[in-house]
């Protein structure tokens, strides 16, 4: 963040007396870009140096050219929209369900204990194993992808919410109790804010899992979207085209994370994790 924070993570350096400078110069974004460039550079070198044959892993530059070409195609954007629609719907359903169930289960010791074994049983079931069931129920349509996405993302959020609810500060909770806040009010005013950082991590995890699953479902089932485009490129031998699509997927991931970080910064400005980044 501040310039001297770059050289040491020490507390003094994070004191940010050159805050105004920081505003002008977005160190964070530039660093992030540098990281991505470093990665692309490495990728470029691997085939160029012959560590892996160029035929099988085309250099980054070639893939980027292919990606830029993709950007000009409506078909590409249609695929992106299809994938993102499935992603968004799946994620929203998963988060809504998980938050609801998480708070219900988390705030009751009985439910927590009684559901533990079942939750643990269901969680490790791979979504891919559910493909036949999904197709059986919904056919080769967005609903199949949705079911797989929801299933996979749901557990990520649920577990985080359960941990978050358990992390509540008892002094805060007692305070709320003595001021006559009922169960619902406490969930709203105490439990929810406490669990929020956990939830945000959960949503961030789930957002990517949902993306991964959206692509995978399209890839394996063949419902329309980026995943199917990848499969097509793969089975058509269009290697650069395939990596271009993979690159696009990764970029979507980066974008999703940026949005999530933004939301997190807005909603968690009071939390010490965000606090220590903002104030100093």
């Amino acid at each position, binding site marked *: 963040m501040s310039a001297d924070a770059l050289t040491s993570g020490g507390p003094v350096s994070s004191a940010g007396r050159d805050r105004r400078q920081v505003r002008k110069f977005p160190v964070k974004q530039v660093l992030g870009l540098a990281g991505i460039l470093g990665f692309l550079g490495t990728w470029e070198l691997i085939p160029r140096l012959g560590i892996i044959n160029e035929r099988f892993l085309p250099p980054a530059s070639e893939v980027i050219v292919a990606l830029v070409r993709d950007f000009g195609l409506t078909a590409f954007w249609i695929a992106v929209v299809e994938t993102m629609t499935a992603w968004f719907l799946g994620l929203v359903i998963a988060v809504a369900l998980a938050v609801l169930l998480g708070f219900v289960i988390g705030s009751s010791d009985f439910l927590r204990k009684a559901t533990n074994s079942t939750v643990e049983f269901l969680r490790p079931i791979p979504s891919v194993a559910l493909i036949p069931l999904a197709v059986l129920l919904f056919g080769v349509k967005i609903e199949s992808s949705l079911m797989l996405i929801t299933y996979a993302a749901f557990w990520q959020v649920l577990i985080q919410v359960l941990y978050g609810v358990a992390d509540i500060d008892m002094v*805060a909770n007692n305070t709320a109790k*003595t*001021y006559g806040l*009922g169960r619902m009010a406490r969930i709203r*005013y105490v439990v929810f*804010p406490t669990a929020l950082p956990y939830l945000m991590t959960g949503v961030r995890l789930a957002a990517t899992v949902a993306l991964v699953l959206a692509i995978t479902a399209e890839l394996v089932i063949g419902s329309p979207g980026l995943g199917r485009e990848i499969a097509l490129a793969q089975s058509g031998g269009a290697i650069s085209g395939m990596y271009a699509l993979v690159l696009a997927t990764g970029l979507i991931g980066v974008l999703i994370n940026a949005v999530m970080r933004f939301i997190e910064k807005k909603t968690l400005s*009071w939390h010490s994790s965000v606090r220590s980044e903002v104030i100093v």
Partner: protein
Amino acid sequence: MQPDATPSPSGKTLPEAMLSVRGLKKVYQTDGGDIEAVRNLTFDLRAGELACLVGPSGSGKTTLLKCISGLMAPTEGEVLLDGKRVSGPPKKMAVVFQEYGRSLFPWMRVRENVELPLKNQGVAKAERDRLVDEALEAVGLAHVPRSYPWQLSGGMQQRVAIARAIAYQPEVLLMDEPFAAVDAQTRADLEDLIRTIWKKFGVTVLFVTHDIDESVYLGERVIILSSSPTVVQEDIVIDLPVDRDQLETRSLPRFTELRHHVYEQIQLAKKGHRPAAAGTVSAATTQAAPASRTDVA
């Protein structure tokens, strides 16, 4: 004395007893063995009484307050509020916790923290605003309503917690060392504030403090706890005039006398001396033992 309450200390369970603690015992179970925090506490508080609770560090004052506010179930004995047994946080009771830093919600601004209990009760917006403004004004924090608690100094945080309790307009007010982190002048102001509120609304107040002068200046009664395992060491009526003044009252000879007496008792408590009656008091049915209630005059 409070005008509407009989000043006479009495050993009987008075019909107007607002708060009765009877044979209270609390044992904490830890993996290192059981810790008996409170052995046997019995005392009554009349409606509208202002009592101070003093006792050595670790004698179980916080524990007692938690039991009274229904946050913790006693191991033995019971707490009656208005004749009803307390089993969960009662309505119209406000507690100011010793850990003020953790009792404020870090995700809410100062104003929101103070407002929350009122909002939760469904108090109308205009009324709520008035109460919150008044409370913040009273604790001298009218200028920081939009700060987050962690942007405040320790003393300011503590005053937010006090403001929240005041704005709530409780019938029973429990305070656990509420002025520990504020400066002398503010402390004096807040002491007067508590007495004003008490006189105005007839609130029943139980006030934990380590400051002996404060306990004498503030209370109509001072309850002294022995060191752990805890019983009531002494129960003193403070017969100072109802209208008190920081300079005047504190320079009264009677003030100095009472102050001295409390100090001696606490020193006794620290040394492990226990009142004669403590062993014989048995739970629930026994009334506040007269032996442990002394007029020092």
